[in-house]
């Protein structure tokens, strides 16, 4: 239709033809040539008018007008590049910050998994695990018998999928020669088919693969690209995982990063039956791995609801099965024990991560919304100020016959330009910011904006576009055509409505600024407190890394670690070296019930208490420099044949040995199979994370317990801790060429990972606070300069009448300080509300922290003074005569 449109030229030609035909006819009727021509022209009437009417009918006049308006807009913006740049950058910062935070929130809390029919997928959750079991996460993980029972139910779910990581950190892999570390998951045979994950190459797993514990693996697209250089020949080759050979049979589709919250899995293997490949990298207990240990709740479960099945219907069907399977290997529930209850949760965002990120993210979203509000009002104010100075232009246009609609269109076009430029820049900011955020938060999954985020951003931009178009219109129209004929600059400008609106907005911005600064102050002080929290040990000089040797027997394993320690101790630059099964500061802790002198350790109120425990090597506390209060540290002579010894912390002694010396007392596991004599009491120190409270804790010696597996090595170096890693790597290779150092880092960095959330949020809050300050300052500066400009004549008169420069400066400053005072008065109560809401995220700071409030108030006053200085001095330097001459 549109393509075959008739050109205006064609139409004009037809009119011309008409005239010729008419002239011919008139000549035939007997007119002279000249008369015929003239008359023919007359019969047509106004040919131009007809052509124009035709043109208007067939062309998208509005589009042409739009293009013209846009062109005009560009020209007009280019005339004041400073204004355009400020407006665009302000908008980009405000919108970009919102896009970035919303993008993170979307990935973490809202986004569905990148699989088919993701709405049918649900995470399985339990209220607890039964007494007498061990669990990784009391809400998320299940035992193998539970998985086995649930997958055999028919009807409620079309697939039940189990998965667990092969290590809490990374596992040793080898492809070709060099040992590396990678993140791997063990998964059920239904993993790819049940989730609906497509494979880019090869195939996924089958139920048979799971039953046979087939030694096949699927690698992720990212891993394939990164480590295999997208080699298409990769299928059929061998990947060694902890020394076990797996044939690569598939590459997963791009975009699927696995189900581990916040991480991106590199490869998957079918649920294995191999002591070298236990769930979570745990050493097999009594030679039993997760498959044979019904009391270890270690598998995460995700299910696909059958079509038409609701969550509650599915739960109703599965609950009895679940509660029966929960006690496999345990017998009957203990008296008075509440059996675990199964529930289902939509598989969205990061699953179990959502809880820890949810609150801070909502908080950040609130902060950036305030920033956006400041940014939008800023740009609107700038536009209003700018357009007020253009009143002459508008007035002239109105006088020349432009309609109000025409003016609105022109203003909207300018606004569209600003918003488009700002929006594009904002999107760029957001892309960079999400990447930076992911790194800071140590999230491997992509946080990049998707379609939902794009819609969100476009929504904000549309709102901004309309606001920026309409807000200045009032000012533009205020003058009317009459202004054009006024020649007096001073009077023409003072006519513009007093900027009470502008003052209100500035005061509001100041209030929001106070809120943001208080929030930022509280969070930054929280971070400082966390960073300065004494760890109870000397972390400077400590380096830590993991090793996962190929272990064939208990004796061989112990021997390996003994040799490793011996080799490391003699390395130049190493002061001391020790081992630990669970890396300290990793955020993980192993907890179980203990018997003290044959009786279950109980709280004051009689409840059995979980005790933290870890398995460590000789010189552990000496290496960490944790003070030993009583007794001694583990030593090399605490060997397998020596009497079993254990060490407890102060808190343990306080709770279970009140008023007694614990040395010499007997500590045992819940089932009584392992017992040890307490030989030392150490001072409480941080174990799992920086912000934890002291908990009763006990340590075993690795050489004396009947399990050995992956361990972490702690080294105290003389110089920079990481500088000794190359020589350490050599020493480890000499023992076993297959072993990579797993996640080597300083112990400080390891502890910092436990406050990475707080660090991230504090940094962001600080950044947003700063952003708010800058925006408020530019906004105030813009408004003031404009107002001073308007009042040039008035100031000139005042000075001519004897006002001193100081008085003029004070006049301007007083005005801003008044606004700041109003803003502070409104902002402090608001900040108090926000502070209360933040309370649970604070550490060592009260919500009513005087320091944060003082700094915020000072900050706002400084902003007010700083932004006013330049306009005020400019006002004071007005030459009275010059100013009056502009009249």
């Amino acid at each position: 239709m549109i393509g075959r449109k008739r050109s205006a030229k064609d139409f004009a030609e037809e009119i011309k033809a008409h005239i010729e035909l008419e002239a011919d006819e008139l000549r035939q009727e007997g007119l002279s040539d000249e008369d015929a021509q003239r008359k023919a022209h007359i019969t047509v009437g106004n040919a131009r008018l007809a052509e124009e009417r035709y043109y208007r009918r067939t062309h998208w006049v509005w589009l042409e007008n739009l293009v013209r308006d846009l062109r005009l807009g560009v020209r007009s913006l280019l005339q004041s590049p400073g204004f355009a740049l400020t407006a665009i950058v302000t908008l980009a910062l405000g919108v970009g910050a919102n896009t970035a935070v919303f993008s993170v929130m979307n990935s973490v809390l809202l986004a569905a998994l990148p699989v088919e029919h993701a709405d049918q997928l649900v995470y399985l959750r339990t209220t607890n695990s039964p007494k007498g079991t061990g669990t990784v996460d009391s809400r998320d993980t299940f035992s193998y018998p539970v998985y086995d029972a649930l997958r055999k139910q028919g009807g409620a779910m079309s697939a039940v999928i189990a998965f667990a990581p092969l290590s809490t950190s990374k596992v040793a892999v080898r492809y070709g020669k060099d040992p590396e570390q990678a993140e791997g998951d063990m998964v059920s045979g239904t993993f790819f088919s049940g989730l609906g994950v497509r494979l880019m190459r090869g195939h996924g797993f089958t139920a048979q693969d799971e039953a046979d514990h087939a030694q096949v693996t699927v690698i992720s697209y990212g891993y394939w690209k990164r480590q295999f250089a997208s080699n298409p020949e990769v299928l059929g080759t061998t990947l060694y995982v902890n020394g076990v050979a797996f044939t690569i049979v598939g590459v997963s589709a791009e975009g699927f990063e696995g189900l581990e919250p916040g991480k991106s899995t590199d490869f998957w293997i079918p649920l294995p039956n191999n002591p070298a490949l236990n769930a979570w990298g745990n050493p097999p207990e009594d030679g039993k791995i997760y498959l044979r240990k019904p009391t270890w709740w270690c598998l995460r479960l995700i299910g696909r609801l059958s079509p038409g099945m609701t969550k509650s219907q599915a739960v109703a069907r599965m609950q009895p099965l679940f509660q029966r399977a929960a006690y496999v290997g345990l017998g009957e529930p203990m008296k008075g024990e509440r059996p675990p209850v199964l529930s289902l949760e939509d598989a969205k965002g990061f699953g179990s991560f959502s809880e820890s990120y949810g609150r801070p993210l909502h908080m950040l979203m609130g902060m950036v919304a305030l920033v956006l509000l400041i940014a939008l009002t800023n740009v609107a104010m700038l536009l209003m100020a700018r357009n007020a100075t253009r009143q002459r232009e508008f007035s002239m246009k109105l006088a020349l016959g432009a309609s109000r609609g025409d003016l609105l269109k022109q203003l909207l076009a300018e606004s569209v330009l600003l918003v488009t430029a700002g929006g594009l820049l904002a999107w760029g900011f957001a892309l960079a910011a999400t990447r930076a955020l992911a790194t800071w938060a140590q999230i491997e999954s992509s946080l990049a904006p998707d379609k939902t985020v794009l819609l969100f951003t476009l929504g904000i931009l549309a709102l901004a576009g309309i606001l920026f178009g309409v807000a200045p219109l009032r000012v533009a129209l205020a003058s009317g055509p009459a202004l054009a004929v006024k020649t007096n600059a001073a009077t023409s400008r003072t006519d513009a409505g007093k900027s009470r609106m502008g003052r209100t907005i500035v005061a509001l911005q100041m209030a929001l600024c106070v809120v943001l600064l208080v929030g930022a102050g509280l969070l930054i002080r929280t971070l400082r407190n966390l960073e300065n929290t004494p760890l109870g040990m000397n972390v400077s000089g400590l380096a830590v890394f993991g090793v996962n040797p190929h272990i064939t027997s208990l004796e061989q394993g112990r021997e390996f670690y003994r040799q490793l320690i011996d080799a490391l101790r003699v390395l130049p630059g190493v002061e001391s070296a020790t081992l630990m099964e669970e890396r300290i500061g990793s955020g993980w802790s192993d907890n179980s019930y203990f018997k003290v002198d044959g009786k279950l350790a109980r709280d004051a109120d009689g409840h059995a208490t979980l005790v933290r425990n870890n398995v460590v090597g000789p010189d552990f506390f000496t290496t960490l420099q944790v003070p030993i209060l009583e007794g001694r540290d583990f030593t090399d002579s605490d060997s397998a044949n020596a009497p079993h010894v254990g060490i407890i912390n102060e808190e343990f002694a306080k709770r279970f040995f009140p008023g007694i010396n614990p040395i010499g007392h007997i500590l045992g596991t819940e089932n009584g199979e392992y017992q040890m004599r307490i030989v030392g009491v150490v001072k409480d120190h941080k174990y799992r994370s920086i912000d934890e409270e002291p908990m009763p804790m006990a340590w075993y010696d690795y050489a004396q317990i009947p399990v050995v597996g992956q361990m972490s090595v702690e080294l105290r170096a003389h110089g920079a801790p990481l500088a000794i890693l190359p020589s350490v790597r050599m020493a480890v290779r000499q023992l076993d060429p297959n072993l990579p150092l797993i996640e080597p880092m300083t112990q400080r960095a390891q502890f910092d990972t436990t406050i990475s959330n707080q660090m991230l949020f504090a940094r962001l809050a600080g950044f947003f606070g700063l952003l708010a300050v800058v925006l408020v300052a530019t906004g105030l500066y813009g408004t003031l300069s404009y107002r001073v400009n308007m009042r040039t004549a008035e100031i000139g008169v005042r000075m001519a009448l004897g006002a001193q420069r100081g008085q003029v400066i004070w006049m301007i400053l007083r005005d801003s300080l008044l606004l700041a005072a109003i803003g502070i008065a409104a902002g402090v109560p608001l900040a108090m509300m926000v502070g209360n809401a933040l309370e649970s995220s604070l550490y060592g700071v009260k919500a009513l922290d005087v320091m944060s409030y003082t700094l915020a108030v000072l900050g706002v006053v400084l902003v007010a003074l700083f932004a006013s200085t330049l306009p005020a001095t400019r006002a004071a330097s007005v030459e009275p005569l010059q100013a009056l001459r502009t009249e």
Partner: protein
Amino acid sequence: MATRENNSDRIALLQGTLDLLILKSLVFGPVHGQGVARAIQRQSDDVFLVDHGSLYVALQRLEEKKWIRAKWGVSENNRKARFYQLTAKGREQLAEKTSEWRRLTHAVERILDVPHGPETEEA
């Protein structure tokens, strides 16, 4: 009041009328724009003086509605001209418009033939 309403009606009426007259003048085969103008003028005994500008815009409108189609050709005295032709849809429209027009004029005639004007009738 009454006259003002009549006025606006007349404009609308005339526009529709021009369409009808164009369609009618194309019944016997393709005619170019100037021919249409002449035909209307001549057949109405010079009562209608067609504004040619409006005529061409009207032709364009009818073409867009697909009631007529056009193509460039050569006139009997060897001049280049754009010839218009009725489409099937145009023929349908012509029949419909004609009967509509007849009904309208009939109704108007009847009103005009009543001895007293509407005002007096009301009184």
